[in-house]
């Protein structure tokens, strides 16, 4: 009787306190953190690829804008040359001044266009960084929760200490608790049947 009492009490304590986090919950929590860490790496890789693509597009666009600007300048040049052919000396001065002014204005007009394109790429990178930082915070929060889930709780420590002392493990406790539950159910059914 003295030896069987702890064997019955300990599983009951363990069962009733219910403080130990179920293995399935700990496993899910651990796997969630692992998956989120892997996802964070993929996300960074994805952002890096998209940013490289955006940088390439900026370069291509700037090159194309240079080509268009040169084409526009050629148009101004062609018009000025045609006008110069029949112009008086006074008109020639005016035509050349106009050409210089048009070419300068054409070059200046490119500046806001280039800035707009560069700003768009910067916006993309800024947003990527913001999303990355937010996801890192989400991963950190999951890790913190996981740390708590894996933490040995005070009640669990007490039961573990007693269980360890009598040479039992959690699997045995679960088996014994199951047996007690089955026995209780059988007894309940027996009592119900025995009632008149």
């Amino acid at each position, binding site marked *: 009787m003295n*030896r069987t009492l*702890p064997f019955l009490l300990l599983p009951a304590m363990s069962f009733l306190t219910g403080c130990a986090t179920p293995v399935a919950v700990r496993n899910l929590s651990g796997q969630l953190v692992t998956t989120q860490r892997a996802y964070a790496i993929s996300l960074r890789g994805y952002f890096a690829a998209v940013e490289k693509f*955006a940088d390439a*597009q*900026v370069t291509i*666009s700037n090159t*194309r*804008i240079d080509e*268009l*600007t040169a*084409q*526009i300048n050629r*148009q101004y040049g*062609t*018009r000025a040359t*045609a006008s110069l052919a029949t112009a008086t000396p006074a008109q020639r001065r005016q035509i050349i001044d106009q050409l210089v002014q048009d070419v300068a204005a054409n070059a200046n007009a*490119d500046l806001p*266009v280039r800035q*707009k*394109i560069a*700003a*768009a*790429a910067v*916006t*993309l990178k800024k*947003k990527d960084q*913001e*999303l990355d*930082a*937010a996801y890192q*915070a*989400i991963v*950190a*929060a999951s890790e*913190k*929760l996981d*740390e*708590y889930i894996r*933490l*040995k*709780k*005070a*009640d669990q*420590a*007490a039961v573990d*200490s*007693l269980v*360890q*002392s*009598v*040479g039992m493990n959690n699997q045995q406790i679960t088996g014994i608790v199951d047996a007690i539950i089955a026995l209780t159910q059988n007894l309940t059914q027996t009592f119900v049947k025995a009632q008149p």
Partner: protein
Amino acid sequence: MTIDELLTQLNSLSSKLEPIAANEATFDLQILLLEVQKQAITEGFSPLTDLDALAPVSVGELRVLMAQVDDAIATEKKRVQFVQTIIALAKTALRAAGVNLPTGL
């Protein structure tokens, strides 16, 4: 009409006008066509500027709650330490009182 469609039509019109007369209007049309192409390139980046309108992900509350979980973890660790001390003390007291504890307890 999209910018691409507009560009196609302008190019077509420019090609039709060029052989007829190289006058000021044709020149203006050519310039306009090239400017539209520049704008089309710039507008290609507009969807990226829309990213600014996306609401930032708020993680401030997560950080606050994480600090609270840190406190809970610290408290739980102290509780475990306390329980272990009590159990050790109880074992010593029981043994001192002459109680035969099971082997290993």
